[in-house]
């Protein structure tokens, strides 16, 4: 049923969204570790400091089938519904669209009336996605101005190309492939856009066959994983330009464009460089109508004793940072960077996007360090900072420690006991752990976090 006034969680601009009230619940994708017989679940975590159950799991909804591997998910509708060219502001932000990256099944989960009791209201079976899109392995969801856009890693047989398909934001009907002309694009991972410039950008990981049995060292060392990003005409759905970061730059993952629709730049993280195992952040930007990309942050590998390293890394005598997720605050001021390998979590001031300044760093977990959380200072932790989410006001940062089931064990052979933590960020730079917030999870591995009402990677805006 349409609303009489716009959904109160829709904001015309990122600046206005920063004034949103603090979130009270987090929805967290939870997948079962290898060997477990449990079905995956979506967890609800209480993140209201005034509540008696603060920092605890207060709800969960189990998936109906085994082996989905929940990964990234998103909302049916968001602030982009206020965009002037296709306005439909009287729909509700209500349903989470939750894909399984292994099963290719998509769950539609109703978060109302009680966010602690979410319910599955529709399941889109893999066959429907295969038939309707010729894609498989859906993961990232963005609510676009006219439909829900879904990222997909590959085709139904596990090969390529990967790309984007669309769902109707009210009926969740599968609408088909997004691309009209994909040019030479083949590998795919993440995507997002600059609505003010009618431009979509996408990145490259690997086809399902290249990742589902773990990272393939031979393929990695021969530069077979993605090392490009792609620029698309969002309106005409055509490939415009490929930006090559260089063959050594392996796995170009999360994309975070500036939220201000007048700014034509954004950041993308690269997992590893074959030259020196460093990780890096690249800035894409628009110059006289053409797009270009430039490395703006390089995070070096840290030397390590071979006996402390997993088989995959022993010969290198170093632990790579492995930047696997990044996030940008709504004022486009702070960029947060997760280093899954070293266990470092970094904050940069990117007010001048060409010259980021490091303003904060904390450590937790890590292949070698196994740094503890302040709440349990004697407990060595596995896994490292991974999926990160930033509250709309930019004051609270949440992250989890699981990457991708088949890959976790390669970097943490003794397993990843899962956790979720929270940091408080200083508006002038700097951040520190909230000592009271440490959500441990023995039964599940926790992955992406979404905040009730929206967060810093859930919404797009058409007004500055």
């Amino acid at each position: 049923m349409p609303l009489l006034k716009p959904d109160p969680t829709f904001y015309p601009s990122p600046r206005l969204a920063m004034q949103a009230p603090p979130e009270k619940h987090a929805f967290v994708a939870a997948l079962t570790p290898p060997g477990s017989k449990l079905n995956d679940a979506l967890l609800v975590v209480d993140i209201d400091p005034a509540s008696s159950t603060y920092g605890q799991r207060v709800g969960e909804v189990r998936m109906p089938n085994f082996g989905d591997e929940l990964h990234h998910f998103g909302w049916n509708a968001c602030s982009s519904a206020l965009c002037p060219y296709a306005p439909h502001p009287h729909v509700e932000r209500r349903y989470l669209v939750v894909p399984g990256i292994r099963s290719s099944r998509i769950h539609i989960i109703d978060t109302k009336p009680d966010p602690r009791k979410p319910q599955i209201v529709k399941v889109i079976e893999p066959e429907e996605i295969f038939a309707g899109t010729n894609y498989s392995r859906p993961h990232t969801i963005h609510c676009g101005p006219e439909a829900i856009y879904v990222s997909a890693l590959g085709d139904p047989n596990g090969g390529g190309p990967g790309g984007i398909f669309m769902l109707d934001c009210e009926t969740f009907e599968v609408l088909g492939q997004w691309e009209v002309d994909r040019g030479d694009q083949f590998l795919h991972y993440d995507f997002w856009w600059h609505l003010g410039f009618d431009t979509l950008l996408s990145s490259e990981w690997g086809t399902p066959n290249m990742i589902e049995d773990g990272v393939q060292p031979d393929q990695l060392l021969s530069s077979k994983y993605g090392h490009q990003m792609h620029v698309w005409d969002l309106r005409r759905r055509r490939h415009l330009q490929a930006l090559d970061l260089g063959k050594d730059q392996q796995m170009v993952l999360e994309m975070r464009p500036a939220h201000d629709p007048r700014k034509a730049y954004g950041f993308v993280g690269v997992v590893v460089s074959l030259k020196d195992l460093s990780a890096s952040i690249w800035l894409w930007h628009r110059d006289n109508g053409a797009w270009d990309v430039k490395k703006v942050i390089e995070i070096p590998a840290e030397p390590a004793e071979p006996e402390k390293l997993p088989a995959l890394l022993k010969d290198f005598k170093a632990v790579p940072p492995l930047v696997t997720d990044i996030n940008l605050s709504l004022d486009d001021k702070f960029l947060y960077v997760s280093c899954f390998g070293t266990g470092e979590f970094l904050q940069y001031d990117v007010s001048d996007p060409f010259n980021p300044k490091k303003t904060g760093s904390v450590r937790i977990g890590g292949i070698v360090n196994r740094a503890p959380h302040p709440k349990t200072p004697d407990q060595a932790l596995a896994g490292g900072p991974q999926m990160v989410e930033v509250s709309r006001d930019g004051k609270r940062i949440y992250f989890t420690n699981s990457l991708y089931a088949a890959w976790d064990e390669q970097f943490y052979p003794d397993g990843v006991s899962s956790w979720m933590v929270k940091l408080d960020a200083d508006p002038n730079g700097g951040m520190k752990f909230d000592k009271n917030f440490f959500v441990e999870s023995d039964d599940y591995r926790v992955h992406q976090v979404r905040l009730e009402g929206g967060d810093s990677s859930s919404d797009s805006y058409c007004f500055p």
Partner: protein
Amino acid sequence: MSELWPWLAVFGLGMFHGINPAMGWLFAVALGLQEQRRAAVFRALPPMVLGHALSIGIIIAAVLLARVSLPERTLKIAAAAILFAFGLYRLLRSRHPNWVGMRVGFGDLTLWSFIMASAHGAGLMLVPFFLPSPAAGEAHHHHGGHEMHAWAFANFSGPSLLIAAIVVHTSGYLIVTALVAIVVYEKLGVAILRRAWFNLDLIWMVALMVTGVFILLL
């Protein structure tokens, strides 16, 4: 006075169309903010007016043509059915527009405005004013010849009525669109959307259905 009020109604409906954020002023504001120039707000207005005029013009022209070729009763039933069905369809299945694109030129904006006005049934809302009325037929009989005069616009021939109606309606539309756009751009800011963007579509579609029924009863 009784000859003036239908014109006021056509003008007023233009104002009503103009106030809807989905019909133009919001897009004009967005273009101004994106380019950070007030001129961009004004530059968006002519194509929006043109697109709106085309959309409602086609509907009015169709009614005026049908008036000449169809029996009065058939015309009324057809008009009533179209209005009612359109309103009901949009009420049950509020498919939102598929347009994507902020970087738009004159042609794009004209087409966009045409699509938005048509999708909202802007022209349909004007239909009742151009239908013949039995009462009018008798009242104006002594003017001779024209048995199918619209009761409200008895003194106009088809083409001049069409042009006059488009000009009057789009004037109302333009005045409100321009005024709201510039006040929001300069003073209020887009935060007002959160409080003041009422779901006009709901009222609008119900109004179309009621009008459809009303035509039959008249």
